[in-house]
């Protein structure tokens, strides 16, 4: 009989298990997979349980980067130590689902979630973090902000069949990090991450929930960077936040079937961006 449940004890074993049976589905927290299994939308032929792979739950430093294991739960990411390292990810963690989902749902499972847009992705895109994808052949680093956010599910662009996400590599930044999330009806959310680096002029902004993947607003970022005072890093004008919001909305152009819905989403993106700038720069 084929093995239908595999419980690897190490990363190597997990990667081998997936390589041997590429149809086997990894299960981390199960909070994205199980609603689909319960609704009979997915019928796995084999499962690779990741609960015993301790390496997936580790985190550490590596010259200027934080390495966060794919198995860290939202609850863990919100703890004070990790919140001090990557504040925007902790802010996102604090707003995820319910306590029960935060206790089980993981970073790696979120990056690949197909049930709803992943709240971690705009944060990772704004931080220009990379995702480590491992197969028996070695490790590939993929940067979510360099993918094609408008062209389809991010999981398919990110991971090749048989690969395992082992963690993410997040640059440690000294500046401010903001995360804003807004419900827009029918269980849909828009999210926005804003990172303003320690160097004046280093601003990055990514929007989630508007398209299949996180969309960076590169032009709006450059505009805002140009509005920062070269010495103090403060913005030139109190109206900059609102103007930035409109620029982000114009650039991101959220997707919706109806025109009125698109206009509403655009407005929400603008408000999220304005709020993020007001929180980051004051005013």
């Amino acid at each position, binding site marked *: 009989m084929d093995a239908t449940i595999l419980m690897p004890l190490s990363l190597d074993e997990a990667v081998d298990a997936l390589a041997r049976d590429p149809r086997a589905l990894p299960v981390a927290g*199960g909070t994205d997979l199980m609603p689909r299994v319960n609704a009979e939308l997915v019928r796995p*032929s084999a499962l690779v349980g990741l609960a015993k792979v301790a390496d997936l739950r580790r985190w550490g430093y590596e010259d200027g980067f934080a390495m966060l294991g794919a198995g860290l739960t939202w609850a863990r990411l919100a703890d*004070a130590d990790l919140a001090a390292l990557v504040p925007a990810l902790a802010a996102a963690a604090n707003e995820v689902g*319910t306590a*029960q989902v935060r206790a089980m749902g993981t970073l790696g499972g979120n990056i690949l979630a197909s049930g709803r847009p992943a709240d971690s992705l705009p944060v990772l895109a704004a931080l220009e973090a990379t995702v480590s994808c491992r197969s028996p052949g070695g490790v590939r680093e993929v940067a979510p902000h360099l993918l094609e956010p408008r062209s389809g599910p991010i999981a398919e662009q990110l991971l090749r069949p048989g690969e395992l996400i082992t963690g993410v590599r997040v640059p440690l930044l000294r500046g401010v990090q903001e995360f804003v999330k807004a419900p827009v009806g029918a269980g849909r959310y828009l999210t926005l991450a804003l990172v303003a680096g320690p160097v004046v002029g280093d601003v990055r902004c990514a929007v989630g929930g508007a398209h299949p993947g996180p969309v960076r607003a590169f032009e709006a970022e450059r505009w805002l960077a140009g509005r920062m005072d070269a010495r103090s890093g403060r913005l030139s004008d109190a109206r900059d936040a609102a103007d930035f919001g409109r620029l982000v909305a114009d650039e991101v152009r959220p997707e919706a079937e109806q025109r009125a819905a698109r206009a509403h989403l655009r407005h929400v993106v603008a408000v999220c961006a304005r709020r993020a700038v007001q929180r980051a720069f004051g005013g």
Partner: protein
Amino acid sequence: MSGPGFGDALGGDATPTTSYVLRVNGEARLIENAWIGENLLYVLRERLGLPGAKDGCGQGVCGTCTVQLDGVAVAACLIAAATLGDREIRTIEDLDNDPETADVQRALIEAGAVQCGFCVPGVVTSVCALLARVAEPSEVEIRRALDGHPCRCAGPHPMVDAVRIAARRRVPRQTHSTMMFNVIAPPTSGGAE
């Protein structure tokens, strides 16, 4: 029912099954020839005869299926039972033996949080997990711990009041020195890992 005991219903000639041991309420229970996609809620209710956790939605949104996993409140319907390994599950049936649980239940009744009762086993399970971790949770901590329990009858506020009542009864009156201690070393918050 969202419980996936539908081997045949899915034309299950090639239904992948497995046998495994689950640690439930302090005992090792053998689950034999079960479909690999069965969620923990289904296994508890239909295979182990533990109906305390309720099947409200099967989608992780209602909180009625809440059980404790290594002491942390989780939604049993979101867990693939066969991948749990040796993690410890505790259900309301076993929590009911603790005197602390009776305090929580009494506080919920006093606060008016028990009406139709469908959400209550889940709420009690979450409150017990919270109070075991933080003796005197702040309002924010209480609301966050209970944000997965939408109560259609009484709303969120009575259950928050109930946690305060239960916590106050449980914690002995603080002396000056223990208060100082709390200021120096605040209780850590956090989750599963």
